[in-house]
């Protein structure tokens, strides 16, 4: 009888132990969820400031995480401004100046188009597993979704915009529904909240989210992904400096 109880326990417990993920495995699943050979998307960014809300629309072409080309579609002042990211380099072209300007150094910490997102945020490698050590610190629901809570600390020698992060990862969809980004001093710098998600080709993707620079006044920047296509063939010339002027 005793043997039977042990056998029954092993039979039921084994799958349960198999489902128990480590922090690293959870990060890998997040990366896998986002991973695609290429992406073409259009997005709307609403920047809520003290004098009102500005809406910017853009279209982006991305190949992996290394190459991104963005064309701003509206409002008129920003229309046709283009941005090219190749690895860890970023160039901007504006029709008003007709100059290709490289963004580097402290300018990378500046706000992108007046939003709560900095160029550095835009440039960062989203493979968090490469940059951070991770601890699974608990489980907590976010807007009725069960989530893992991960605490990430930058690996020695890795150049990161934020020394540590705390993320709440949806247990089913492997999307970080909430994220808090901290400076080395432990000061909270930015907060990200995903309000709406959608499913596209077996992967879950954020539809509407808010990025808030907590050091700035205002209600943050809301980003809506209007459309997205994965694994699209993008001509090579798109990711060249020549295409900035086109």
């Amino acid at each position: 009888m005793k043997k039977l109880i042990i056998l029954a326990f092993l039979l039921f417990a084994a799958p349960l132990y198999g489902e128990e993920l480590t922090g690293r495995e959870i990060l890998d699943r997040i990366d896998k969820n986002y991973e695609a050979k290429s992406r073409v998307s259009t997005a709307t960014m609403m920047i809520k400031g003290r004098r009102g809300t500005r809406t910017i629309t853009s279209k982006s072409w991305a190949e992996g995480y290394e190459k991104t080309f963005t064309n701003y579609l509206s409002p008129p002042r920003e229309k046709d401004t283009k941005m090219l990211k190749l690895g860890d380099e970023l160039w901007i072209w504006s029709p008003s100046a007709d100059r290709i300007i490289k963004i580097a150094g402290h300018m990378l910490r500046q706000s992108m188009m007046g939003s709560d997102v900095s160029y550095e945020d835009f440039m960062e490698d989203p493979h968090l597993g490469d940059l951070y050590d991770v601890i699974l610190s608990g489980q907590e629901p976010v807007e009725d979704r069960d989530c893992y809570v991960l605490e990430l600390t930058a690996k020695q020698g890795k150049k990161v915009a934020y020394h540590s992060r705390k993320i709440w990862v949806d247990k089913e969809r492997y999307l970080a529904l909430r994220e808090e980004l901290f400076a080395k001093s432990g000061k909270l710098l930015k907060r990200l909240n995903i309000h709406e998600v959608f499913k596209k080709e077996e992967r879950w993707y954020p539809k509407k989210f808010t990025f808030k620079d907590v050091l700035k006044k205002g209600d943050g920047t809301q980003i809506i992904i209007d459309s997205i296509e994965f694994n699209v063939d993008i001509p090579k010339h798109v990711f060249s400096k020549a295409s900035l002027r086109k």
Partner: protein
Amino acid sequence: MIRFLLKGLLRDRSRSLFPVLMVSAGVFLCVFLYSYLNGAIGDMVDASARFDTGHVKVITRAYNELASQMPNDLALAGAANELEKLRTGHPRMIWAERIRFGGLLDIPDEMGETRAQGPFFGMAIDLVNNNSPDLALLGVAKAIVRGRMPAMSHEILISHAFAEKLGVVPGDKATLLSSTMNGAMAMHNFTIAGTVRGTVRFGMVMIDKSTIIADINDIRTALDMADFVGEILGFTEDTLYDDDRMIALAEAYNTAHSREEDEFSPLMTTLGEGGVMGDILRLSTFAVTIVVGIFVFAMSIVLWNAGLMNGIRRYGEIGVRLAMGESKGAIYRAMIMESICIGLAGSIIGTIAGLAASYYLQIVGFDISDMLQKSSIMISSVIRAKVSITSYYIGFFPGVFASVLGTVFAGIGIYRRQTSQLFKELEV
């Protein structure tokens, strides 16, 4: 009587030379220190007023909260109307519009790609208008070392150090990269004014490091600030700061125009109001009081001591004068008269020497730029003394007063001498 006393003083050098030297040295220090502090602190206040605070400044309430961050998104709307109102309402004041901004100056190569770039502090003023009050207030034309004044729009001046860092010469193109008042990216092309080296040197390390000066209308276009202004600065007609007058002006303006519930309503602040400048102004008054106070106190003690020593040395002379029937009061008054003569002589010599040294420092100055390489405050890199009307009398009266005070204390001993004991004492 005075002639008689003067003869005595001149013939007996020990009664005149040392006290006169003492008073001269004290008065010299007083005049020189006052003029030096006046120059150093005055320079700082004046520089801050001209470049930053004005004597009064009109900004929005929201801008005032974050002024150090140059928050152009909180700029004052209806700039032209506001400026006109101020000029009409206060015609004796000088009013100047400014926009302060920051960003990156990018220098293109022959292919139009980035050759060099660096962060800058920018100041937009009425630059291409010959009647602009800012040209005189900031001394822009005098500050140009090489190159020329911008003569048309889209021309800028950049600081000497910055030009060298970026490797640019007058005539080179530069692209300003900044944020519009709505937070969007601003990219605008300019030409660096000048034919040799478009450089500006204001003699202030913070500004000299990496500054660009542009025309306010160009910056309005670049930063999408049509009819907006960051700050309107007001100065008295003689550009001398008058705290009471400016406080009264600001109170009247704020009562009439500023509404607490509207964060974008205009607010007038004064140079002395709070902040570092207010502290510096209070410190400057306090420092002058301390310098003069210490001088009078220390000199009185030294001259009192000198009087006592003199009294001991002249013990016999005073005894003989008393024995001959001169009253104690007459001797005391004669000694005080002597001290007035010494005080006057010492004060005149000390004031002349102090003024001469101060004038020298006013013209030559101390170059402290090496000490200010990492300076973040607006301070002149050459400290100069400043001789004002006060410099002429600040040491004079304390010099005479300290000399008399020392004698008044030291001479009290005369009244303690007993006539009956005089011959006994003189025998000794």
